[in-house]
């Protein structure tokens, strides 16, 4: 048993899980075209969830803050981006990739800017007074979430809003018998770029080194002469901005959004962070992909189990690895 574990470890360890999951689904589904479509949809969903969850994982890992208000950034990101796309409706629907792209860039930039500003406000005003007190963190961030949802309701109303997709992201590419939605490919690519960017910053820069060290032992980072409270603000802002971008991408994916979007996604986001292991970007990516693939495969194979699939996945993984698949070293 130990030998098998060592062999698996050398081959990639827990990183083999998505491949194993995909292989199992291939056998169960039987039809290669359906399997490929579901796999691409799962990967795409996983990357969007990764965008939303990566910030929460870092905030949780580094700052030890239970931020239930994280989903407010997802909701606001979705609504801000939807509003910008609506305002730039002419560009969104134009028969020009350049204008389509500019509309998308402006929408994502608006979501990022909002996420950064809201993150700064949230950390400074709401989180800072309750550091080191988890109960108060839960209460105050839940309260902030409720207030945020009411603000969205007041600004955008309770009626579902249709999100315009840039014209160049509409449609699908046909590869043999497999139909691949362009939007899903784009979402996957954007998530991948965000992961690579985060990975490089965390592993190739001094700031990243500080963040990784801070996740493990904040007190020691301060004893080395660094003001970790300033690092906290930066991480919180970046985490919030990533959530807003994730929300924006999810809005385009769903094409119809309500103020409850953030709250609905929050359950999935927490599952991903717990499965992946707190404070670990690689773990969050792994958890997000597992969740995305599981949701799609189970939705196809056993639709009645679809809603419970991620909870079941989390339970199995926590029974096996109580700290998640790739937790940051503490």
């Amino acid at each position, binding site marked *: 048993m130990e030998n098998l574990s060592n062999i698996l470890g050398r081959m990639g360890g827990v990183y083999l899980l998505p491949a194993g999951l995909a292989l199992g689904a291939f056998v169960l589904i039987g039809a290669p075209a359906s399997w490929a479509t579901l796999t691409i949809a799962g990967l795409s969903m996983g990357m969007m969830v990764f965008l939303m969850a990566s910030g929460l994982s870092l905030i949780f890992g580094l700052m030890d803050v239970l931020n239930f208000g994280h989903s407010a950034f997802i909701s606001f990101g979705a609504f801000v981006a939807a509003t910008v796309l609506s305002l730039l409706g002419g560009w969104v629907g134009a028969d020009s990739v350049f204008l389509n792209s500019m509309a998308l860039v402006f929408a994502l930039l608006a979501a990022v800017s909002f996420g950064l500003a809201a993150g700064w406000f949230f950390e400074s005003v709401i989180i800072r007074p309750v550091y080191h007190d988890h109960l108060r963190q839960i209460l105050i961030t839940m309260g902030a979430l409720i207030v945020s949802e009411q603000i969205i309701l007041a600004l955008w109303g309770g009626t579902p809003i249709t999100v315009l997709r840039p014209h160049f992201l509409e449609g699908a590419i046909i590869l043999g018998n497999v139909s691949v939605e362009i939007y899903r490919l784009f979402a996957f690519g954007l998530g991948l770029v965000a992961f690579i960017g985060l990975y490089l910053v965390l592993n190739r820069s*001094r700031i990243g*080194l*500080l963040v*990784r*060290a801070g*996740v*493990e*032992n904040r*007190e*020691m*980072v*301060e*004893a*080395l*002469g*660094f*003001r*970790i409270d300033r690092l906290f603000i930066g991480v919180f802002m970046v985490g919030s901005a990533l959530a807003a971008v994730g929300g924006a991408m999810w809005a385009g994916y769903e094409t119809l959004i309500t103020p409850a979007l953030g709250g609905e996604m929050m359950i999935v986001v927490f599952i991903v962070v717990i499965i992946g292991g707190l404070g670990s970007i690689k773990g969050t990516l792994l958890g997000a992909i597992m969740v995305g693939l599981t949701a799609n495969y189970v939705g196809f194979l056993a639709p009645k189990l679809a809603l419970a699939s991620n909870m079941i996945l989390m339970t199995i993984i926590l029974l096996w690895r109580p700290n998640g698949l790739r937790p*940051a*070293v*503490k």
Partner: protein
Amino acid sequence: MTLLSLNNMKTDIGQYAVLHGVTLDIPEGGVFVLLGRNGAGKTTTLRSIMGLWNPTPGSVTFRGADITGLHTADIARKGIAYVPENMGIFGGLTVEENLILATDKGRFDQPRLKRIYALFPALEQFWTKQAWSLSGGQKQMLAVARAIIEPRALILIDEPTKGLAPSIVAAMAEAFREISQSATILLVEQNFHFAKSIGRDMAVIDDGLVAHAGPMADFAADTELQERLLSLSA
């Protein structure tokens, strides 16, 4: 010449008063050892100097400047390094990353690094290994190396020999002797034999107060005093 002065330092942790008024002068150079029974307040003294717990009231003066109430990071920047009892190494970072994080400008001073290699050869050997994979002794070496990777005037070290093999303890004593040629070490230690082998001056903390302070040689010669303050038998 006095490097660090603790004046009537009182520290509460939660609702418990741990230090009841520690007053102590640490001279520049050499190894100053804080001795005392478990729970006497030795670690709290180091943490209070470092600003990890704030003494109220009381004051801490370093090189003549009042550092009471400063942020821990600002205290560290003034030239005080800290090696906690649990070593405080970052297990997910490599040996190199642990050390480079402690440099002022993100790069090594090569002569200084060579000196560290000479003191702790294992660190060069495991340079690219993640720190969690090191043995207890190697982790302690890394923790001490991190404290001296830049010139620091004062190094606070909390129980560095705890759980270490005798050969590692001997190597650590040798390293501390060399480090104390260029920096002052304030050492908390339970192992009296180790402490007396390297300490120049000492103080005994008992129940949150300084019960005795003076040259280590005098204390080492006074078995009755040792018995009374530390419950050591000759």
